[in-house]
């Protein structure tokens, strides 16, 4: 089975990913500014991971979004729809103009993604701790069929406080799901405070290793590092892969950087204009 690959991608994947990540930040922040709703801090911490997946790693075909052989991506941190919808539009799943309807009445672009509204969404998320367990099920289907598609899931880090993740982690480790990759957006901030001040997660890498996973730690804003770890073949690893992407909430804009106030903060006109100047 072949999937379309961009000519740009073949030339220089990292340069393309960098351009797309900047575009995702700018476009998602415009969406949040216009809607006066959203989760821009998490959009920015995840933007580089999303750009890397959609423009360097995933085998997908926006013209055939339910092709059985597609790689799956599950956005478990479903509140970060600014970045997620922007990357889906950038990848061609729906027209960019649709992004201007973000959270407007009757929009297909709900605050949390709905598979029945939008092509490219695999499962409806929003409540935390749902994406990984569903992704484990997708990966098991691939394992049963000896299919070669891969399943990727992006969670927040605060989200890992939901116990459902650890149930699913047990099953994934037990079944040695090498076709499954979990990416943790490790920005160390949850809605109200730092994760380590709330219900600490460290040592996070040891937890996943103890559950039978292979762990890689990367700078979640380094496109080349992300591209290399996510595009490497999983064949023969014999374990599910956990990529702990160390990130910053609000990455890319000085006054949002690592600032918990921007979990679901929305910009006024002055802040929006300053952010756009910085995201040039």
């Amino acid at each position, binding site marked *: 089975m072949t999937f379309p690959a961009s000519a740009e991608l073949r030339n220089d994947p990292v340069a393309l990913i960098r351009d797309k990540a900047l575009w995702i930040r700018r476009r998602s922040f415009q969406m949040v500014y216009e809607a006066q709703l959203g989760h821009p801090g998490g959009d920015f911490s995840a933007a580089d991971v999303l750009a890397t997946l959609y423009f360097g790693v995933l085998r997908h075909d926006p013209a055939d979004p339910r092709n059985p052989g597609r790689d799956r991506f599950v956005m478990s941190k479903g509140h970060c729809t600014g970045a997620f919808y922007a990357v889906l539009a950038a990848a061609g799943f729906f027209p960019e103009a649709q992004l201007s309807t973000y959270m407007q009445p009757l929009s297909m672009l709900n605050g949390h993604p709905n598979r029945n509204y939008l092509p490219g969404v695999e*499962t409806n998320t929003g409540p935390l701790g749902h994406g990984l367990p*569903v992704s*484990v*099920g997708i*990966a*098991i289907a691939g394992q049963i069929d000896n299919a070669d598609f891969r399943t990727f899931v992006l969670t927040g880090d605060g989200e890992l406080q939901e116990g459902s993740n650890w149930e*699913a982690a047990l099953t994934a480790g037990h079944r040695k799901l090498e076709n499954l990759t979990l990416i943790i957006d490790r920005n160390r901030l949850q809605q109200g405070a730092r994760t380590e001040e709330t219900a600490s997660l460290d040592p996070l890498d040891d937890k996943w290793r103890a559950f039978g996973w292979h762990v890689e730690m990367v700078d979640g804003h380094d496109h080349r590092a992300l591209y290399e770890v996510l595009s490497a073949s999983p064949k023969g690893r014999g374990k599910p892969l956990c990529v702990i992407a160390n990130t910053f909430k609000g990455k890319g804009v000085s006054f949002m950087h690592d600032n918990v106030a921007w979990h679901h903060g929305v910009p006024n006109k002055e802040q929006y204009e300053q952010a756009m100047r910085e995201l040039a």
Partner: protein
Amino acid sequence: MSAAAPAPAGWHDCRDTFSKTVEALAEADPRIVTVVSDSVGSSKLVNFRKRWPERMVNVGIAEQTVVAVGAGLANGGKIPFVSAAACFLTARAMEQIKADIAYTNVNVKLIGQSSGVAYGELGPTHHSIEDMAWLRLLNNLTLIVPSDPWETEQAIRAAAALDGPVFIRVSRMPVPDLKRSNAKFEIGKAETLRDGDDLAIIANGVMVHRALAAAEALAADGIAARVINMSTVNPLDEATILAAAKTGAVVTVEEHSVRGGLGGAVAEVLATHDPVPMRILGFPGFLPTGSADWLLEHFHLNAAGIADAARQVLTRK
């Protein structure tokens, strides 16, 4: 597990029908898989595991995951039958059923085993007498409460053929084969098992044969009770309920709480369109210690109790 009295000869545990039917479906369709949470024996799936070990996914004692993994398997092209004790499958995993199954609208079949008060003496943690109320209001989720082995098989087959989420309540409480003159199962269509124009008794699951026995007793008093098997609770057959209202009195009977289940569903329809005197028969809530049979008798969920309620509601016509 429950120390119930031995069932009368010729009565059946519908879990056997579930496993036999899902094996027959699996023979014909490689997409059929089973998903369990250490619930192989209690789901009567030991033989399925023996025949297709690679097509049974056991996630361990983890109901949130058993439901979510079912959703994922459907995404990967499988037709998963997720089977676990109804009490845990619903109460423990309601958000997964809401978000991953019903709202996402995936092709997953949830089998709530040993529903109602089948676990008897094990108590309210193991009873599942809230599930109809919790599940029937989820859009997209077809909810079926079969009455006997024939209907259980029909429901399982119809669920497999339907591209969408289904929950089927399967009891371990023995039931007889119901007599049907015109046996035809259709999701969303109630079945009139006995005609009568004095009042209508609307029941489902293990209460249907008791409702039929009550109608027989009422006939001896010259009262003609219609008996309706409302096995599909969502989508609800409103036309049959409104036709029943034309008798002028309705009694509902369910192995479930009196709040929010079949009685609640029927009451919503009647109150909105055609209010008539009504009685809702079921359990009051968390129950005292007792076997399943004892609980049904104690709360008058038997032929005599249903007939008494019918006579009482007729006085309000």
